[in-house]
């Protein structure tokens, strides 16, 4: 069986559509009979990533590859890059604006949640060029 590959575009500053990609992936995984625990991990990790792309980068592209043993999410943006990954990984550390916080985001929990709910996470970032986050969830 060949792997299923899904591609999504995340629009910049569009909070009204944030979550659509994660929601679509969640629905597809459920229908494919992926165990609920893995589906939940993918939904949380990917939604946080999607929100990050809306808040911090100018949107980007998400590729999801579903293999028999893993779900691999690749979130690539052309945003400003992450200056200090260690700080960004600390719960509570955030560079989000006041209006983002007013929507219930920007509490500095995005990246920590992504790490917590994925079995493997890798961040490739270049200042001024962009960031690619790769997350893997085992089935």
């Amino acid at each position, binding site marked *: 069986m060949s792997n299923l590959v899904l591609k999504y575009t995340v629009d910049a500053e569009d909070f009204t559509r944030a979550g659509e990609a*994660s929601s679509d992936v969640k629905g597809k995984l459920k229908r494919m009979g992926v165990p609920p625990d893995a589906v939940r991990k993918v*939904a949380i990790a990917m939604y946080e990533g999607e929100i990050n792309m809306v808040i911090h980068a100018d949107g980007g592209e998400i590729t999801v590859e579903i293999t028999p043993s893993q779900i691999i999410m690749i979130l690539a943006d052309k945003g400003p890059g992450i200056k200090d990954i260690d700080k960004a990984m600390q719960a509570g550390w955030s560079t989000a604006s006041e209006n983002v916080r007013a*929507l219930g*985001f920007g509490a500095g929990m995005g990246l920590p*949640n992504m790490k917590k709910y994925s079995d493997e996470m890798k961040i490739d970032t270049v200042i001024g060029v962009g960031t690619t986050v790769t997350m893997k969830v085992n089935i």
Partner: protein
Amino acid sequence: MNVNELIEKAGFKPLNVASGDREISGVYNCDLMSVVMSKGFPGAAWVTIMANINAVAVAALTDMAVIVLAEGAALDEVMIEKAKAQDIHVLQSDKPIFETSLEIYKLINNA
């Protein structure tokens, strides 16, 4: 107790009702989306003041039964459109978060 019964017994204003027969498994409170994403649970009645579209996305992703907007939280029309599209129940209560949550808790636990 399902969503229709909650509307009838608590008198919350229905802003969007999907099937209405979704069972409520418990009550959940939080306004910070990252926390809600990791702690919100399937079947929950989520009492919040976050009347924005992202609340609908979070409720859908965590498979909660119903969003109850406390404090008569202002209704966002885009949010209702999204709730309709995603079959997410949204109700409105004039009471604060604690009173609203306690009322639901008592109803689902026959307390």
